[in-house]
């Protein structure tokens, strides 16, 4: 994954983009409202969330067994499972499958896992043409940009920008028709369809795709070969356990009971079927996930990628997604990206948060996101990564403030030095946009 080393600089750019600010505020509000309404109508939403948490936790605890069951079930149905460890391996495996299929054109349905392994770049480097068929992703691809939100990738675009990208006048109707026509050819002529998977059911060897547009269904119906890039943690043991997770995903992501197309694919086409792929390959990606197992961060693997945390995050609302990384953003991104990549490279992300806790409150499967962010901050300190100045500062502060005398001396000095406070350090940073607090006679001395 690409890294974002300077969150602050990228954030400044986003903050100055007036249109992006308005789009992020409206977009996240709508998605949040949708979830709140859907949860309100769901009946026992607390019970459903707890059930979801239990299913996810139990699955991750026994993940190896479920992966084996999945592989056996799918192989029995004529599918091929490829287990990979690194992002490079996974991308190379997909390229190899495409080469074996003599493919020229790859049609893709939205998949964050494919972004993680930078698949498009690998395919293009191998001489293949790749087209994203999810409308938002297609537009971002034309513009050469990365997705801004895991559920609504084009959340920042205006209809004018969308129309420009497609070469039509800025009318919604024309935009839709242009997208439909341009992508129809892709569906019909692509050699390989590549999708992600929202879930994979072990007992039947099925892949579950959750979309609203129908593009995933066309990508998996028409091309001769279907490749699924599957995060290893997306397993669900049985169809019966899939049902509540589908309810949680749809209600939390888009405020729906179910998305328009919830499709289960089990192996390639059967004999005499009219369409469907002749080959079905599932490339299972690890890319750092197994490193979370057995740690305090294992719960992060419960994530069902609904985006609910993004939609309530007051920081994401101001910065948008690409400020965090090219792939995952918001609270789940701030936790996951340092863990999949490295804490050294992504030291800013655990601090890209005011720890307000809205994410934890919104997570349908109960991941304590803001507590995991705090854990990451502790790791930064314990491992000696991040600001040495801050570490020294807090140590000195803690010794000074472990006695009343020390507290009095330091705060008297601070009071005397206050006029200079705006000149250096945190005081300078604070006073860019806010008045420095006045330090008058302490409460304890007035009493």
């Amino acid at each position, binding site marked *: 994954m690409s890294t974002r080393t300077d*969150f602050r600089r990228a954030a*400044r750019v986003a903050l100055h983009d007036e249109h992006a600010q308005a789009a992020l505020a409206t977009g996240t509000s709508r998605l949040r409202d949708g979830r709140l309404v859907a949860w309100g109508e769901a009946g026992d939403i607390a019970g459903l969330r707890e059930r979801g948490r239990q299913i996810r936790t139990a699955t991750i605890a026994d993940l190896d067994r479920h992966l084996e069951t999945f592989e056996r079930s799918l192989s029995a149905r004529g599918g091929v499972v490829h287990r990979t460890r690194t992002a490079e391996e996974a991308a190379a495996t997909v390229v190899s499958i495409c080469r074996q299929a003599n493919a020229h054109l790859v049609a893709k349905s939205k998949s964050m896992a494919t972004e993680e392994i930078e698949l498009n770049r690998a395919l293009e480097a191998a001489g293949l043409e790749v087209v994203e068929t999810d409308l938002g992703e297609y537009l971002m691809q034309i513009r050469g940009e990365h997705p801004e939100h895991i559920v609504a990738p084009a959340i920042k675009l205006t209809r004018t920008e969308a129309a420009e990208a497609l070469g039509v006048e800025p009318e919604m109707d024309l935009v839709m028709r242009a997208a439909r026509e341009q992508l129809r050819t892709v569906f019909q002529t692509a050699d390989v369809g590549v999708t992600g998977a929202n879930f994979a059911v072990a007992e039947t060897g099925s892949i579950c795709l959750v979309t609203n547009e129908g593009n995933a269904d066309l990508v998996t119906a028409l091309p001769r070969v279907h490749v699924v890039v599957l995060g290893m943690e997306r397993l669900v043991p049985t169809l019966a356990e899939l049902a509540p997770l589908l309810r949680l995903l749809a209600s939390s992501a888009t405020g729906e009971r179910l998305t328009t197309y919830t499709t289960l694919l089990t192996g390639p086409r059967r004999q005499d079927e009219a369409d469907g792929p002749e080959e079905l390959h599932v490339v299972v990606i690890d890319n750092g996930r197994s490193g979370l197992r057995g740690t305090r961060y294992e719960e992060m693997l419960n994530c069902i990628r609904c985006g609910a945390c993004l939609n309530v995050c007051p920081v994401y609302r101001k910065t948008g997604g690409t400020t965090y990384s090219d792939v995952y953003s918001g609270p789940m991104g701030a936790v996951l990206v340092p863990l999949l990549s490295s804490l050294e490279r992504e030291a800013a992300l655990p601090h890209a948060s005011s720890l*307000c806790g809205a994410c934890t409150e919104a997570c349908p499967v109960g991941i304590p996101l803001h507590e995991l962010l705090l854990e990451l901050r502790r790791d930064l300190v314990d491992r000696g990564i991040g600001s040495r100045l801050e570490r020294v500062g807090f*140590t000195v502060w*803690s010794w000074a403030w472990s006695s009343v005398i020390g*507290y009095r001396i330091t705060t008297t000095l601070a009071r005397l030095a206050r006029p200079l406070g705006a000149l250096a350090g945190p005081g300078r940073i604070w006073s860019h946009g*806010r008045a420095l607090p006045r330090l008058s006679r302490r409460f304890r001395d007035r009493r």
Partner: protein
Amino acid sequence: MTVQLFATCLGDLVFPTAVADAEALLREAGHEVVFPRQQICCGQPAYNAGHRSAARRVARTFARAFAPDLPVVVPSGSCATMLSHYLPELVGCEPYDVWELSAFLDQHGADLPRRNDGRVVAYHDSCHMLRELRIADAPRRLLQRSGAEVRDLPRPDLCCGFGGTFSTRQPEVSVAMADDKLAGAAGVVALVTADPGCLMQLSGRTARTGGPRVLHLATALARGVDAN
């Protein structure tokens, strides 16, 4: 009853009059207030930045200063959370009977004089009070009992942007969050909050940009929203 008052470091240093207002409210409600003089800080600034050892060193001063057998009242939602949720494990002491100020007054307060008759105010929920302590009704009820009309902010769930070290690690985002919060409070006489951190953030911003008066709940109740 007799209660111990924890001023908090921000209260002691930056908002001493708000702490004095808190004490006055407690006395007015008929309680005896003790101020343990060895108190300093609960350690939260370091704790939330991941510096556990530093936090522990300072948090120990709380356990040394405060008696375990009397309630502790705190005019700060974030410090009340630190003391009730995290201090015992961090320092290895028995839990204290910690009360955030508005929760205490709501439960144990006498009648409040109507110092805010006819005033239209907005109340800002601090994240700790909203999500960790789940105290949202008590401060609103108290303001209403004082005669104020309490308006809802459009997005009460959104953080004001303080977040301790976040305010200087990501200052531009922090200030933008404060601006969004203040924009929602247009048209009210005062924006009231029960947390010194939020108070410092929002009043620091209005000092530069203008906007509603921002004051501590204790001041709003003890002397009215027009008080200095």
